[in-house]
């Protein structure tokens, strides 16, 4: 079941096209990465999903229904540019924001106590926001985002401003929410975190979607036939490696005769043949295919798309 679907969404501003026929599909229970360079149109797409602005063309479907104002309570949104009223007390403010999401005051207080206790911030209830550090404010914003138990959570650069410990805490909470049935959309530039938490991604560049799919499938499809090998041999690497193999790097290890190699198969991808070939020349201690990182894929795809556009 797909929780969210956008169909050929177009958004124009006065003199530029922010989104050009963007269609994405997000299955229920996924952690979905929305990637792209600055100004690609990610925030516009997120604003359309949140109904902050409407699409000029195309449709958005949530849970099999066309997006409508009633759906606001099913979505939780933590924007990249986020803030709180500085002069307002933490508790009052959290209750206020929860009420705007349709919770009653009593219910909001009850749930807030639970989350504040969990994050060990209950003692801040009566403090003014301006007295808190940025990281503390982020925790409160996170709690407010998830408090009404939305089916769809949207995080725009959620980890910016968090120290590593709190970032880990936040990551665990997000995955916990996913395990309890929520679907998460992640918009981020942090490619390491994409590999770590996302099941699927869409890559948006210059108002177009240029890539979408499961993270492991994408990485496999981008594989460049790169292998890392540790080999014990008396021979010189250059001597026994054939013409269909390129040696990118050779590093002698501490133990004499042990080499760390980085190889690229220039023709085909018959790993067994490669292994047999290597085994004939020495002892294979480690053999691993190197998949490109999301970072590499991101840079490569965006560059490629920009070049294609210029042609």
């Amino acid at each position, binding site marked *: 079941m797909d929780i969210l679907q956008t169909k050929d969404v177009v958004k124009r*501003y*006065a003199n530029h096209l922010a989104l050009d026929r963007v269609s994405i599909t997000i299955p229920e229970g996924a952690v979905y990465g929305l990637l792209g360079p600055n100004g690609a149109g990610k925030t516009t797409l997120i*604003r359309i999903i*949140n*109904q*902050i*602005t*409407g699409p*000029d063309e195309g449709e958005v479907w949530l849970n099999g229904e066309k997006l409508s*104002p*009633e759906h*606001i*309570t099913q*979505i939780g*949104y933590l*924007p990249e*540019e*986020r*803030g*709180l*009223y*500085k002069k*307002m007390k933490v508790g009052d403010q959290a209750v*206020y*924001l929860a*009420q*705007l*999401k*349709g919770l009653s005051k009593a219910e909001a207080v009850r749930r807030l106590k639970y989350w504040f206790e969990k994050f060990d911030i209950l003692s801040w209830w009566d403090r003014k926001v301006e007295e808190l550090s940025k990281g503390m404010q982020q925790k409160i*914003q996170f709690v*407010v985002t998830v408090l009404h138990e939305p089916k769809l959570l949207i995080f725009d650069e959620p980890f910016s401003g968090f120290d590593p410990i709190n970032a880990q805490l936040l990551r665990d909470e997000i995955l916990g929410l996913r395990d309890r049935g929520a679907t998460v959309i992640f918009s981020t530039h942090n490619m390491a975190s994409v590999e770590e938490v996302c099941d699927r991604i869409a890559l948006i560049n210059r108002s177009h979607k240029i890539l979408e799919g499961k993270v492991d499938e994408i990485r496999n499809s981008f594989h460049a036939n790169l292998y890392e090998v540790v080999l014990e041999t008396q021979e010189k690497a250059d001597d026994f490696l054939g013409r269909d193999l390129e040696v990118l790097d050779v590093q002698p290890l501490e133990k004499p005769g042990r080499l760390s190699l980085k190889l690229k198969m220039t023709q085909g991808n018959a790993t067994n043949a490669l292994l047999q070939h290597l085994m004939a020349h020495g002892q294979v201690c480690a053999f691993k295919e190197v998949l490109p990182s999301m970072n590499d894929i991101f840079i490569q795809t965006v560059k490629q798309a920009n070049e294609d556009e210029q042609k």
Partner: protein
Amino acid sequence: MSRNNTWVILQREYLNRVKKKSFLVMTILMPLLFVALMFAPALLSNVGKQSKTYLVVDETGAYAASFNEATKDRYVFVSDTAVAFDSLRAEACNGVIYIAASGLDGNRQRADFFYMTSEPSMEQLSGISSKMTSSLRQKLMQEVGGMSQEVYTLVNEAEVEIGAKNMETGEQTYSEVKTVLGYLFGFLIYLFIFMFGGMIMSGVIEEKTNRIVEVLISSVRPMQLLTGKIVGISLVGLTQLLIWGVLTFLLVFAGGLAFGGGIDAESLASAQQMAAGAPIEMDAMGKVMDMIHSVNLSRLFVIFIAYFIGGYLLYAAMFAAVGAAVENENDTNQFMLPITVPLILSIIVSVNILNDPNGPVAFWFSIIPFTSPIAMMIRVPFGVPGWELALSLGLLVLGCVGTTYMAAKIYRVGILMYGKKTSYKELWKWLRYKA
């Protein structure tokens, strides 16, 4: 759900401001200031105790009885103005009261007070006017005879208008009660629009620079946010106004009692005179009350509230739009012009309006929505035809709808725009964006 959200926002906007210390201080200090302003002249004139001499030229012959009681000041009747003016020029008297026969129109009498060096105070004029009014009423009753509802109304609404003029220049001064009231109410509207409009603007700027607007806007529509804010803050204004009214009334009342009790012998004498049913020289309290009674206060108040709300709503959304167009308070100046110009202009032309409350300047300024809240309030104490009031209020409502519609469009786009220096050209673009 959606209406509920507007209500939640409204509550926050209201309670957050009403609970502030500055609100409390303003709310208590202003009535004290009002009352001090009201009583100071009355007190000062009592402290002076210097007896003054006025010459009265009465062409109607109806007001002899008005000035024959024993009072602190002396009133001397003379037969013609030339004699009186010579005397005034020679500083043998403090002023000349000229009651022209042509000044009588039904139950209204127009009179002039000429002075040389020192203008008469509002209390002096209203004191003279009330002395004359009782004579005018007696005269009317004698003339008409009998007692019917019409006669009662005629007599009850009888009024003496007395205006002060400089003898040499013929220039009118503005110490009349109506002038002061008109100016006061007009200026209050001016003050309130800027005060509460400013509150809206800084509220919007706060939400924008805080970036909390991003969070809010995913839960509520921009129009709900704007409506909640505007209505919430208007209720803050009305609350303050209500408290000011009640406190001022209580202070005037308490002050009247205190001062009344403080003026020993004279006030005792007054009290005895009052018991005997004779007109008396009024104490401070009496003077204030008399001033207030000389205009139809409840009518004035209803009109004031109407123009207060109308004027506020006309400008409220514009203030919000300015707040949405900028990044911080320092950048607001360039966009404030369309708001400040009409308001300041209405204050500037107030002199012309007071000179001729039914002239073309007064008419047009009190009809055009952007200036009407102030201009009309200045005119109202002088009496404005019903159709003009209706037209002016009708246009004001249309104006409110129009400015709110335009400003809301700018607001909607502006609150989510960062890091760009906004220009008027940019605003024009925003106006044409689709929702």
